[in-house]
């Protein structure tokens, strides 16, 4: 699991995945993405 390599504000891959998923969820919640087909 790649973690931040320095003591800077670099985030781990896990955290970026959570941020992207939550951003997508917000976009769906506020109808920016109206309907995602499969």
């Amino acid at each position, binding site marked *: 699991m790649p973690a931040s390599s320095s003591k800077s504000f670099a985030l781990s891959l896990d955290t970026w*995945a959570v941020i992207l998923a939550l951003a997508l969820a917000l976009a769906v919640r506020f109808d920016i993405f109206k309907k995602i087909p499969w």
Partner: protein
Amino acid sequence: MAASIALPRVKQQNTPLTFVRLIPGILLLAAVGYAGKFLEHFLNTYAKSHHWTFPNIEYVLWAILIGLTISNLLTVPEIFQPGIATYEFWLKTGIVLLGSRFVLADVLKLGGISLALVVVEISLSLLLMHGLGRAFNLTPKLTSLLAVGSSICGVSAIIAAKGAIDADDEDSTFAIAAILALGALALFTFPLIGHSLHLSDTVFGLWAGLGVDNTAEATATGAIYSDAAGKVAVLAKTARNAMIGFVVLAYAIYWAKRGQASTVGNKAAFLWNKFPKFVLGFLLMSLLVSFHTFSKDQITSLANLSRWAFLLTFAGVGLRTNFRQMSKQGLRPFVVGALGEVLIAALTFGLVLGANRIWGL
């Protein structure tokens, strides 16, 4: 060398160039994944229109097979490698989004059962792998890595443990190769066994989540069986992943006491550092759904987003699995891993059947 088996790592360089370098590989993941989806649809439609009896082969399996064919019969150019390595990022994004398909009560019930089974599974797996490692004269640190990889969560656990116990690159490469090769075999054997025994989706999903080591392969194995089984497999595997910090911490303390690893200073910080954050994201998403934050249509959209993310993951599982390179890593760790995996698969199967009897899954 570790690089020869495509470790799922993305080097973090804060330059726009990093993102540009990811694009070709991500496009390849999308093309392979979509080809799998297209093949499933096309073959089903064609068979129906010609009144053929053709088994429904899920897009998951097609995507993996296309990826395996490309990576084993052709040479994937270097330009695609950084993007292919993002498959684990899409896996974790997909898992967080999948949280929208569970209300908290389901997570607590199934997750609680999974967690109880995980504790038993981890304890027995660790004992078993150490016994096998000793019997086959593997180095103690390689045995530790194989034990961590097969009892918790495959490659991520091995990478986390490698740093914590100061293991050699060679040992971790052996362990990763064994876990990946065995995970690839599980993709095909678990569903066959499940179908031949007519297992329910929940029982199979729990078994895949507990018995298959790497998170990507566990997710794919469940999804190959059925959509519902894939969902349960992710939940069980997430419960297993949540234990990573505790087991790695125990190993770090053990090796530090023997003077063969750095001592662990702040244990709480160590646990937080090793804890997979996507587990928290998954729980948060489930919590949001339980409080009716999303409409029914929006939940369907989130579930579909999760499927798209998994599509890229499954393509990546095939594309990064190269049997030729894995075979170069040596036979003994593979034999130990294989023996251990077969026994762990049998053990977890017994555990899941026992839980089914007690709780009626």
